[in-house]
Structures are given as structure tokens and as C-alpha cells.
């Protein structure tokens, strides 16, 4: 089956991740169907995706004609049946167990058993999501990292019953997208999330204890270890409520106290200071999500 041509990819869910995946898949020359719950939502997703492409043009990453070509390969629809004509279907709806499970059941009934369904999750259990489906062996996990258009790695995850064929097709798909697939066995948080979250949580703890300010913690890590973003700005840009949910989930799953969300993180989330998109998290941001309170030492230096 891994010799099969991959030409049509279904993306179920047009959120930030879904749009980013759809863009990357289209830019790799494949046809994409993006499915949303209503045609109004589908239109909105299209507009948002186009706006993101415009932003890339402003940043010299893309040209007008490349934007046109990218959009021409993406169809936006409310019709789930369209996914049935794809060779691979990726679900990218929000990180909620019940919602994902309901969708997988629907897809399982709709799709030919040979079509793998890729679950895009960072913390949920593939095996548990697949349980009870007529064809649980077709479920593969793929943890894409945002922005999908530029990150070079993707975690490809085997659940307990994932078939080799489905797994190999997912790996082949990753290569078509120009990404390095890392083969992983299912475990909460996989590699990237599991390693990153305790670091972020500890950074928040350090701020809460008053050891250093948020800006200083980020500056230390950024300049000290050549991080592109400090851990707190990274969390702001992901969304603090998401970071909180992931930590909470890993804590419950493993019982390991290193994943217990720091009280300061809870506080910020309860205040609605969820990060860059909300204008405020650990730092302040303008409407275009540019950070406003960056200290002078945190600017590029030549020589």
C-alpha cells in the first residue's frame, strides 16, 4: 500500500492547525479538501487561510502567483462525504477526546478500510481513540508542530493496533511534505510535548517564586541556549489555556507531579490572559501579535 499514489488529502477541521496543514499539503502539490461543520465556517476558514498567505507574501515567503496556486488546490466544504474520495484523511479538530472519538466513528463508517485516518494530537491516546472502531488499525497519530509550513519535523505515532501499511503511508506522506518523520510509540505527550512542557512549567515556577522576571527568564534561555523563542513567549504564542490543558492532561495521565500546572499559569488562564492572540499573557502584544514589551537586550545583534 505504501506504493500507492498520494494525490488527494482530506483535512477535517479548519482551525489554526488544520489551515496550516492544508497550506503545507497544497504547497507540496497535492489536492486538499478542508471540511468544516457548516458552509459559513468553511468560507470563514478559506478567508483566514488566504489572509495567512497574504501575511506570508508581506514577509517575502510567498508570491502572489504561489498564493493563487496554493488556493487553487484547496477545496473548502461542509460535506464530509468529500473526504471519502481522498487517499488519506487527517483530523485536526480541537483537542477533545469525545469530539475526536465521535468524528473517528463517523469517518470509520464512511471511508474504505484501506484509507488511513491520521489523528493530529499532542496528548490524547491514539489507541483509546481507535478503540471500538470497525477498523482501528487504520488510525495513525501524527503530531505536526505549528507553523506546519516551516517546522521540519513531524512525530508519526503507532498506536497499539496501528497497521504497518497505515503507518508507512503516514511516513511517506510526511516525506512528501518535506518533513522528517520521527517514528514513535504511543506515550502521553510523545517526545516534543513531553520534553517541552516541564521546561515551560519550570520557567513559570521560577517567575512565581520571584527568582527573576518573565522577561529575564526568557532572555536567559534565549541567549544562553540559542532558543529561537524563550519558553514563556513560546507558551504565550501557543496559548496559555492550551499549555495548561496539555499539562493537566499529562499530569492526570501519568500522575507525575512534574506535569502539575504551576499555579501562576492557572491564574493567568483564569484571568483570560491566554497569550499573544489575546494581547496579554506573560508579555503584552499588539493586534498583529508583535510583542510590545521586549527589553533592548532581546533584539538581534550583529557581531
Amino acid at each position, binding site marked *: 500500500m505504501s506504493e500507492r*499514489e498520494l*494525490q488527494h488529502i482530506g483535512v477535517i477541521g479548519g482551525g489554526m492547525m488544520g489551515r496550516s496543514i492544508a497550506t503545507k499539503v497544497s504547497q507540496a*502539490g497535492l*489536492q486538499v479538501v478542508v471540511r468544516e461543520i457548516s458552509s459559513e465556517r468553511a468560507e470563514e476558514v478559506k478567508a483566514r487561510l488566504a489572509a495567512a498567505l497574504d501575511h506570508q507574501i508581506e*514577509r*517575502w*515567503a*510567498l*508570491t502572489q502567483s504561489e498564493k493563487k496556486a496554493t488556493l487553487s488546490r484547496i477545496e473548502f466544504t461542509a460535506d464530509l462525504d468529500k473526504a471519502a474520495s481522498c487517499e488519506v484523511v487527517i483530523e485536526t479538530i480541537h483537542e477533545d477526546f469525545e469530539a475526536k472519538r465521535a468524528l473517528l466513528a463517523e469517518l470509520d463508517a464512511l471511508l474504505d478500510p484501506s484509507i488511513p485516518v491520521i489523528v493530529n494530537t499532542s496528548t490524547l491516546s491514539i489507541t483509546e481513540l481507535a478503540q471500538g472502531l470497525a477498523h482501528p488499525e487504520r488510525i495513525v497519530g501524527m503530531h505536526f508542530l505549528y507553523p506546519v509550513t*516551516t517546522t521540519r519535523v513531524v512525530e508519526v505515532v503507532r498506536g497499539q493496533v496501528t497497521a504497518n501499511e497505515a503507518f508507512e503511508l503516514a511516513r511517506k506522506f510526511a516525506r512528501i511534505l518535506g518533513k522528517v518523520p520521527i517514528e514513535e510509540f504511543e506515550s502521553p505527550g510523545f517526545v516534543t510535548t513531553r520534553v517541552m512542557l516541564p521546561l515551560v512549567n519550570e520557567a513559570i515556577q521560577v517567575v512565581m517564586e520571584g527568582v527573576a522576571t518573565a522577561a529575564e527568564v526568557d532572555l536567559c534561555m534565549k541567549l544562553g541556549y540559542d532558543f529561537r523563542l524563550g519558553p514563556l513567549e513560546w507558551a504565550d504564542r501557543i496559548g496559555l489555556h492550551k499549555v495548561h490543558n496539555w499539562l493537566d492532561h499529562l499530569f492526570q495521565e501519568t500522575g507525575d507531579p512534574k506535569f502539575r500546572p504551576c499555579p501562576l499559569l492557572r491564574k493567568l488562564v483564569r484571568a483570560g490572559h491566554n497569550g499573544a492572540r489575546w494581547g496579554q499573557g506573560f508579555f503584552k502584544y499588539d493586534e498583529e501579535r508583535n510583542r510590545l514589551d521586549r527589553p533592548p537586550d532581546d533584539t*538581534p*545583534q*550583529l557581531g
Partner: protein
Amino acid sequence: MKILVLNCGSSSVKFQVIETSLEMIQANKDSAIAKGSVERIGMSDSRLSLEVPGRKTYQEISEILEHRTAVERILKVLVHPTQGVLGKVEEIEAVGHRMVHGGEKFASSVLVNPEVEEMIEECVVLAPLHNPHNLRGLRAAQALLSGVPHVAVFDTAFHQSMPPKAFLYGLPYELYTRHKIRRYGFHGTSHRFVAIHTARLLKRNLEDTRIVTCHLGNGCSMAAVKQGHSIDTTMGFTPLEGLLMGTRTGDMDPAVLPWVMAMEELTLAQLNAMLNKHSGLYGLSGVSSDMREIQKACSDGNRRAKIAFDIFCYRITKYIGAYAAAMGGVDAVTFTGGIGENSAEVREQTLAGLGFLGIELDAEKNRNLPRGEEVIITTPASRVAVAVVPTNEERVIARDTVRVLGGVMPSFAVPDNEAPR
């Protein structure tokens, strides 16, 4: 004999069938009996088109997912009972392939054998955007036309005669020995073709001439062709260097790059796209990458378009002077390519200040060119001739194929032009 010429890009294959022979080349009588292309390979609506002189253009749209299928369809349409031009596929006696990068390995066009194929493979790292597709096309054609010889013609080969002082950069020498960072130059088949035809037009031996060739198209480059050898060219390690182009910067201070990357927080991919796709005529003018649009905007009084136009011409002027100096004089300047052949304004402004070199443009001839013909556009009194010679890279590829098969293909390498490894 009939030669099939193939030029494979990432999602397209351009082709021509050329009737040629050593005698026909000598008499300048070789010509295309059909040409066309397959566009949008990998899509469900790929387009194949075929142009045959005297007939309406034929088009078909179908799903063509890979280069092999594209070549298959091309062969099929060529032998089609009503649309085709061949009785049977076996009439094709050889295939000539355009290859972008031959690195330092190829100073000539060559017959493809497994060893040559491996060497082309080794050049992929130098042209990751082009060579893999060229190779894919080559392999598809080899599979489908296994009984005939295949010849590879490289964009870089003609410039392999450059001396080290022209091809090395002022970088640490290890970058040359480790990574082969040096000037290679491109458009070699075009520069060579128009230099030969310019000498012929001047009724002089190529071996006695010093010609500056200007290939001004989508990409733009110039070459100093002395006694038939390229001794310098404006494009470098990649086709970005040298002249201003539609969307490419051409020459600039490389120190700008780390500076811009830091200030704008750009990734390598963004920087590459900025230099190759957002700069040049388009980036400067904000109007278009197309010279016709730029000229129109200029006449409408758009100041940024005028600046872009001026920079475009000024760079060419500068390099004509530089190459005249490099060759110890100049006998002819030749324009070719879409802009070189069609923009009287570019030629006029470029040459305006070059009277001191002995260039005297015939303004009337410059403005009223017979389309598609080789002409001289300077006055009889002009000490340096300026010519317009329409380029024809496919014809060169077909010619080289015949020459390679006939054992008369010259190498462009010259003695003692190697740099120490």
C-alpha cells in the same frame, strides 16, 4: 535525422522535434518540425500542446501525474495519425536533453551512459531545484526510447573555459575545495549560439572576435566571449548574481544578507525567496516583473518603475564596459532573449553612453526590427557592431546531439584554466 529535444522542469516538459544533420547545421538549414509542452504535471488537468508550422495549435487536457507519463503522451501525439508529425516513434534517431548544472564535471555536451548519469546525479547538490527534474525526464525518455542514444547538454558547460580569476570568489579557499563554491554561469547554450551567429552575421571568424553577449529574458546574464570562449559571465554559483532580473536582485553587497536576516528575523527560506522572487524589477517598482509592464508604467510617469528600468539598463552598460576591458576590446555586442530581442528602449538606453567605445546605434534600425531575424542595428561607421540575434536553445541542443553522435563535439575546456584543488 530527426532529434527529439526535451527540457524538463518541476511540473513541465518542453519539447521540439528538429530535422537536422551535420550538413544542415553547416548550411544553417536545421529546423523544428514540431514543438510543444506538457504543463501542470502532477495535476488532474495537465495540458499538452503541440505546434506544427502551418497548423492550428493542438491541445489536450488530461491527468498526467509524472514525467514518464508526460513523455509517453508526447510520443503518442507525435505519431498521432492526424495531429502528429511522425509515422512511427522509431523515426526519432536520438534525444537531446537540457541539463541545468554540469558543475566542473562537464565542459561539453556528452553521450549519456551510466557513468555520465552518476556524474549528473553528483551535480544535484549544486542545482537542487533543476537537476532532479532534468534527471527524471532523462530516465523517463531512456525507458521509453531505449533503442536510441541520449545526449545531455549543460547550461554551464560553455562557461567552463573561464579562468580561475573570473570564476573564483574572494572567499576562504576551503569553500571552493570542500563545496565547489565558484562561479559557474548559466544560459551557456544561448550565449554560445548567439556568439557563433553574430560572428557569422559580421562575416568574421569566431576565432578572431571579441563579443559581449546579453541574454535578457526571464533570467538575465551576459558573457564575454573571446575567440569563441566564454572568459567571464555575470551569473555565478546560482542564477542570482549579475544583472537585475524580473524578480532577482543581481549583484549586491553580501553583508546586507545577515543584516536583513537579523533585523527582519527571516528564515533561510524567506531570505532565499526574497532574493529570488520578490526583488529585481518587481521588488523595486512594485509594479511587475515584466519589462513590458515596467515600460508602460514608465511612460505613465511611475517613478519607481523608471528607477527599476534605469538600474536594469545601467547594469548592462557597466558590464559591457567591464567585459570590453576584460577582453582588451570589443568587436560586437549582441542582444538576445525576450527583452533583448523585443525592447528597443532597453537597447537604446543601455548603449546611449557607449559612443566612446565606438558604438554608434542606428536609431531607426533599432526601433524597426524585423521580428525573429538576425540583424545589425549599428551604423556602417560604428567601430563596434551591435546585433540582435534571436536565441534558440533547443536548436543548439539538437545540434550538439548530432555533433556528439558524429564525434565532432568540441570541448569548451581550455588548457591551464583549472584552479588548484
